[in-house]
């Protein structure tokens, strides 16, 4: 087959919604785009462990502590499936870490915001995991098989995370006045960054069109954002909390909520590294990796010794 016919075969699969598998031929740019997207997603899971990990030792009840610990552990698990999915595209986990540590690879900017009170555990579960689900459910039908399959598992767990976050918010909103204040303060701080999680507006999103063509992406950033707003406003009403957007209004004609302008300067500023926690998060990851080097070396050395001993025993 010529490159031309490889391409034709690939296009046919994409158009017919047939999954692309690791051994299938795929255009270089498709592979690159997937590595970028999957690894960015994996890094987000791993870096995303830190803001919530910040409250494990201070969780206010034993039940909350156990649930939070299990949740952060799930995120590590998601990172693991996603790194594995990325590895099927011909890149190693060590290379992916290297890209994270050098700043070449990005992770979701939301994790560059600090978790200041216990209510942030509620807001992250409710809003951040809620936004992640909106982004990720369509990815379960993404054209690349290993990614789509990883996302099926991830989404099941995320919906549990979202519920536990909402339950924290519900408890706080129905609690003492200062607990309700804590919940409102968390909503005030996490609302806009959560909307930014869907990425820049469609008109300015460089990758959207090609990704839609390849069926890596199924809905545009703005479509997903609108869906998220529509669902979340109702949930905030049940909590009795106020979404910090004075322009938020139901639009009968559109059948959607209209909302205020997003501060994209803030978004790009955080992407560039100037968020409240960018340096702290990356330094923490780099330190964990550097501190763990001797442990990984020891594990490798021991495995080699075992192998050598086995070979000697066999020979004798």
């Amino acid at each position: 087959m010529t490159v031309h016919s490889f391409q034709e075969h690939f296009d046919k699969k994409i158009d017919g919604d047939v999954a692309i598998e690791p051994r299938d031929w795929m255009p270089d740019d498709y592979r690159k785009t997937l590595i970028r997207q999957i690894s960015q997603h994996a890094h987000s899971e791993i870096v995303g462990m830190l803001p919530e990990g910040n409250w494990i030792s201070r969780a206010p009840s034993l039940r909350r502590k156990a649930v939070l610990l299990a949740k952060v552990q799930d995120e590590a698990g998601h990172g693991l499936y996603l790194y594995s999915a990325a590895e099927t595209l011909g890149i190693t986990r060590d290379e992916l870490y290297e890209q994270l540590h050098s700043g070449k690879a990005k992770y979701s900017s939301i994790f560059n915001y600090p978790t200041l009170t216990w209510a942030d555990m509620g807001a992250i579960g409710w809003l951040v995991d809620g936004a992640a689900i909106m982004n990720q459910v369509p990815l379960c039908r993404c054209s690349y098989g290993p990614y789509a399959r990883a996302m099926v598992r991830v989404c099941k767990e995320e919906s549990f995370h979202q519920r536990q976050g909402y339950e924290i918010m519900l408890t706080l909103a129905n609690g003492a006045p200062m607990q309700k204040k804590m919940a409102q303060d968390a909503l005030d701080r996490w609302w806009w960054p959560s909307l930014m999680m869907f990425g820049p507006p469609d008109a300015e999103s460089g990758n959207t069109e090609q990704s839609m063509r390849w069926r890596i992406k199924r809905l545009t950033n703005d479509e997903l954002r609108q869906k998220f707003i529509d669902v979340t406003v109702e949930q905030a009403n049940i909590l009795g909390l106020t979404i910090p957007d004075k322009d938020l209004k139901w639009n009968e004609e559109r059948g959607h909520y209209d909302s205020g302008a997003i501060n994209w300067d803030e978004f790009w500023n955080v992407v560039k590294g100037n968020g409240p926690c960018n340096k702290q998060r990356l330094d923490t990851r780099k330190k964990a990796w550097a501190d763990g080097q001797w442990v990984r070396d020891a594990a490798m050395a021991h495995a080699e010794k075992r192998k050598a001993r086995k070979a000697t025993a066999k020979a004798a």
Partner: protein
Amino acid sequence: MNDQKALLQYTLRLADDGLILGHRLSEWCGHGPILEQDIALTNTALDHLGRARSLYQYAAALFNTLPEADKATFFTSVSLQKEVSEGTAIDEDDLAYLRDGWDYRNVLLVERPNEDWAYTVARSFFYDAFNSLFFKELAKSNDESLAAIAEKSLKEVTYHLRWSSEWCVRLGDGTDESHARMQQAINELWAYTGELFTMNDADAAVAAQGIGMDLAALRPQWKELVALVFDEATMAMPADAWMHTGGKDGRHTEYLGYILAELQFVQRAYPGMEW
């Protein structure tokens, strides 16, 4: 000490051991050297925490049925005494979040800081080896609640011990650096292993009732178990010298105060609320 108070003290100690070790292990979450190990260690932290919760629930039930006069003086904690005077039944969270360090009964070993992977492995290994023997005996306890918790814990402990033994061997028989770090961790933590086998009043009282056991009798088996793994790990067994004690009677190292300051922060800053 009467029988119920001794049983309560004993149950609390087992719970405190689980909570404090679980707390220490959970400090690794997100910071582990290998992603798979981050997950494994968090799992273990969850096991310790889960066991602690079952034990605290049982301890709370024991406390709530004490005579009023005993309840009022059992813990030196303003918040707990207030609940008692108001006639409120206490629960697992009251025990974890409202007691000060001198009412915590955990052994000193579990409050030692993580330091590095070698210290963390050594601390877990010493404790897991003890637990594997202890819970096997406790499963035969004539206290049904403790026997049931022990039975369930045994399955988890078997996994914990396999994990920490394997890491002992990997680090001991890995590189020169890992060998040196592992040996240092073992040498330094050794002085905290003696307390696992000491008998205080509560231990003696519950042993006499067929609820607990003679802990000192577990030590020879424990040493055998440790020696077996050390042999494979090419680690030297430290000589028995001075052993630190005090935790079982509420006299702790300086570390516990900071653990509790962090653990109890929200409950202390916003008292009496549901979370």
